[in-house]
Every structure is written in C-alpha cells, then in structure tokens.
C-alpha cells in the first residue's frame, strides 16, 4: 500500500497548527460562504474540530495553504480577505474554499438534508428488459439505418 491512499496514517493532528485566531477566522469565513439558509445550517456551525480534522487528515497538503489564507494580516472582513486571496494568492484561496466545502459536505446531517446518501453500491440488474428497449427506442435507432461513412464510397453506408 502506498502512502497516498492512507489518510488515516497522517502522523500528527493538524488542528494545533491553527492558532485560535486562525481558527476563529476560519469559522467566520465558513459562515460567510455558506450561511444558514433554506433549511440548511451554516458551515460555521457545522465545521467543528472533528470535520476540520477530517479534511486536513485526508488532505494534509491543504494545511499550509490554509494557514496562509487565514493569517492575521489579511484583516477581519471575510469578503475583502477572499477577494484579495482570489486575486493575489489563488492557490491559498482554492485551498480555503475546498476545506470549507469539504468539511461541510462530509457532515452526516448536511448530507441527510440533501438526501445524498453518498456513493452507494447498487447491484446491476441485467435480467430485466431495459426500459429503452421496451419503449422501442432501440428499434427507432435501427429503423433510421446505418450512419457510418463507407470509405469505399465516401458516403453514408447503405442498409444491407
């Protein structure tokens, strides 16, 4: 097994790399990007330590760009911070968005509200006649005849 696919093997907890100021800034930005509305909760509320730890554990490469995106000198206005990052530091901006979205949409409650069960295993049924056959859709394609171009004539092939 290679290291790339074993996020649980990340050696240390990434959360302590975010000081309280950065952590608070992250929550404010998350709530700004995805606020509570339309029956959905705010990302600021959803992304607690567990969700943030999960994202950074599976994507340890995001830790440093996230730290950079949350640094104090970028100010307290989420909109201004995001605009500046997008303009001047697109990699840090992208990392911040992905951590927010990743933390939010891996939350069980959020997924339930969206009626999204995750990527499920659904066995393929091949013993039933597919609806497109029953409806005659295949017959209609066949009735229109061949559409391939015959190299011998340069024209659409004739029905045989």
């Amino acid at each position, binding site marked *: *097994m*290679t290291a*790339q*696919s*074993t*996020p649980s093997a990340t050696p240390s907890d990434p959360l302590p790399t975010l000081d309280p100021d950065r952590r608070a800034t992250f929550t404010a930005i998350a709530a*700004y*990007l*995805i*606020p509570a*509305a*339309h*029956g*959905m909760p705010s990302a600021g509320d959803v992304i607690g330590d567990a969700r943030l730890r*999960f*994202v950074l554990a*599976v*994507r340890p490469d995001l830790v440093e760009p996230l730290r950079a995106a949350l640094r104090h000198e970028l100010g307290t206005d989420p909109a201004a911070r995001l605009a500046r990052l997008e303009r001047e530091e697109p990699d840090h901006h992208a990392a911040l*968005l*992905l951590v927010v*979205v*990743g933390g*939010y*949409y*891996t939350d069980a409650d*959020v*997924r339930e509200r*969206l*009626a*999204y069960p*995750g*990527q*499920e*295993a*659904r*066995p*393929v*049924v*091949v013993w039933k006649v*597919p*609806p*497109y056959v029953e*409806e005659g*859709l*295949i017959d*209609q*394609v*066949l009735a*229109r*005849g*061949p*559409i*391939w*171009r*015959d*190299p011998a004539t*340069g024209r*659409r*092939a004739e029905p*045989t």
Partner: protein
Amino acid sequence: MATEPADVLIVGAGATGGVVALRLAQAGFRVVCLEQGDWHDRSEYRGAELDWELTMRKQWATSPNVRALPEDYPIDESDTEVSPLMYSAVGGSMLIFAGAWPRMLPSDFRVRSLDGIADDWPLAYDELLPYYERSDRQFGVSGMGGDPAYPPGGEDPPLPPLPIGAGGLKVARAHARLGWHWWPEPNSILSVPYDGRHPCVQRGTCQQGCGEGAKASTDLTHWPKAIASGARLVTGARVRRLETKAAGLVTGATWLDRDGHEHFEPAKVVVLAANAIGTPRLLLLSASPAHPDGLANASGLVGRRLMMHPFANVGGLFDEDLESWQGQFGCSIESFEFYETDERRGFVRGAKWGLAPTFGPINAALPSRAGTRVWGPDHHLHVRSHLGRGANWGLFGEDLPDESNHITLSPTLTDSSGIPAPEVHYKVAENSRRLLDFHIERASESLREAGAHTVEVDRLMRYSGWHLLGTARMGDDPSTSVLDRWNRAHDVPNLYVVDGSCFVTSAGVNPTSSICAIALRAADHMVESRFNQQVPA
C-alpha cells in the same frame, strides 16, 4: 540483476504492456517488464469512502503534476492548452480511466482519402476487427451489438449492457424525438461476473480506481495471467534510456530502482508501452552519437504530431432528481450523430459524445467541470439544483495531427530520479475550435430537448488530456513515419512501440479499445515473425 537477455523487454505495465506481455508469455517468450509505479490493492481506492471527492483532487487526481508522487514524472505544461493526464502503476492509466470502450470507425483509418487532410493509416477497420473482438473478451466489455454507427457483422460485446440511468433514458427519448443517433455505450466494465471478477455496483467513482475490480485494468485482467505464464514484472523500475549497438539494434534498458541504484536489463527485443508522452521522452533520452536526435528518429517525427482530443463538457440541469451521482463513469449512452465529416459545418471530421455522471456535493459546490460557484444564502439553492440533477455530455473532438504539437526534453525540470522531464508544446487547432463550437451547440440542443432548464458549458477543459496519441506514428514510408504497420521502428528492427504513440490520426473516440487492439495485433505479429526477428548477437 539479469544476465541472460530477455526475449522481450517491455517498458511500462499499463494497458498495452499488459496486453503484449500476456500474449508473448503465453506463446513461450521470456518476458520482462519494467514499471516505474507499483501494484495497487483495491482497498486503497477511495470511491466508497467519505473523502473521495477530496482525495480525487490530489492523491487520485488524473494529472501527475497535481499528484506529484515519486513514481510520477512531472510534465512542463507551460506551453500547452491541455494538460496530459496519466497514472504510473501496474495497470497504468487504466486505473483512473473512465472505462468507455468505443471502437474507431472505418472512416477514421482513411482521413486523407476521404477528407483530403492528415493521413491514412496503413491498416483498415476490417483488419483490426478480429483484434477488437479478442481484446473485448480479454478485458470483459459490456455493451449492445448492432449499433448502426458501425458496419454490421462481427461479434457482439461479450457481456450485456450496463444501465443507462434516468438521465440516459431522458436523453435517449430526446434523441428519438430529434431523430438523432444514440446507443448504450460499450464499457470495459463488467455488467455480470466475468473471469473471476465482480460486476459493477454503479458507484460512479471509476476514475479514482474501481473498488469492485469491475472496471478493466491490466493489473486485474492481464498481468496475473502473464506472470503465471512466466512473465517477470519489476516495479519501482524507472528506465533512464535504451542502449544500442553499432549494428543499430537495441540491446536493453538502463534503469534505476527506488534507491537510485542503476541496473541494466538486456533484451533481444524491446517493446515501449509508456504512453505517447513517456515513449517519445524515452526515445529522445536514448540519443547517442549514432542517434543524435534520439532513437528511431530518422524521420524526425519522434515526439511530434501529439494529439489529445480537445474536450468540451456540456451539462444539462433538470428539475427532477436523477441521482446522477451514481452510474458507471465510463458512459451511459453515446451519440455518433455528428461524427462524420460534413463540410457545410465549416470544419472536417467530428466528435463522439458520451453521457456521464455528475459527481457528488463537493463537485456541485466547487465544479471541476462546467458550472459556477455561488456563495451566501443562495449557495444552498445552487447545490440543490446541481446535486443529482445533471446529465453531462462529454464531447471528444477529433484532433488532427500537427508536427508543431510535440514533446521535447526539459533542460531544467527532472523527475525524482533526476531524469529530464518532458515538455509539452500543444495548441488547439482552428478546425478543433470550430468543431467544438458546433458540437457544443448540438449537445446543448440535445439536453434542452431532454428537458434541461439550464445548460452549462466547459468549452475546452484544461485537465482533459486523457487521450495521448500520435508521437511515434506508424506508416509505410520510413521518411514520414516512425513505425511500420506492425508497430516496429523503421530504424531499429528489434524495437516496437505499442502504445497510443503509434496513432496516425486520433479519430474522435476514446482510444483505449483501439490502442489495445493494435497492441494485440502487434504482439501476434511478434509471435508469427519470431524466427525472422533480428536480435543482437
């Protein structure tokens, strides 16, 4: 370290490396393969895990530059509009390909004769048909016979078609109303148990490795049998260069192991199966006083004529929940309605369309294909309107060969072993832009007829270089081609190239089916001509 030369040394254990190794090992050849990547266990794939949409953007990204794993080589992309995509492992890029398995059409082999542009192939559709059929059985292809986009006759796909899903059915009905072609897509993904493998479970994560083993890749379909037949596969083996003798024959390969130690693997015949970026890179790296422009390059065409299928994604959004995050990521249905040349459109050649799933909620929020991002309260409406409610036509346009689209060696960038990385120089041709514009309009029409209230377009996706073709083309004339019609280098009689480098023109379809059929044909020829094969003394 080997002392006796292998009968055949294969570089690369991906799609064609596996095909050739199995055929030759079963014919009694002593086969050795050097692969810079490793084996992957299916338990490593993330499709069934909560993190799949996060890891697909890094650890399981299709771009080696994004993954940046030690076994990947970096690619200088500063002079290309499309990023080449690949994976270094046993099974190669098949681990992350979609699994769509259409064949080329008869006209694809006669582009010069029919359309007065590019070149004809030195072989024809009918000649390749038996190899398509054998290859389909080896990989396990699901599909429906009788597609009127192809000539009649021949074997049907060995397995029944996969489901087309709610989105596929809506679009199929729309095409019935429009009078346009559609057909269930053939996929190298099992619809039923086959050859000891499990069938597809419709998880929709084919491009991050198939956890079921339902999607074909040669680590499952070919290498275990090849090894059981005596082939020796060395992983973590990065080939630095091919070595030659004064007589013009290749004698083997110098390679580096994971610890950086150098080895030499002697061989009577060498087969390159390293994709249309890796193969020309290696031929250029093998320059010597006798071959100052690179090995097998008397024509000057090694690394030139790179084709990557300019790709557009046209996504339709529907009111109904289609659960479009599920389903094979190969494709559910295809259309060849506008595949053949119609000069009234203002361009030559055409594109095949394939309808694909639409990922999960992270992609709905941060689309990797067509679409926008919405923040604030309306973010929730945006995600609800996208998640599970989409159908995506992927449009693969035929890419015409152009010698200015080419591979060179970087003077500055290297892989983790210090070997020069490839530079890709690639521009999308005007014909391709017109072609995509036309097909985008028609695909949008298809989706609107199917009931889409919104159509979103990604006109020329940067991360769409899945199909790497043409950098060591085959042909009958050594002055205008690198390989002969059997994939053997004109200049080096014991050197073969069996990957997509050999393509003369790109066609407008997913090429892996054709690449594998051509490789199987080349392997048959190696077996049949074994007693006439020139080898080093």
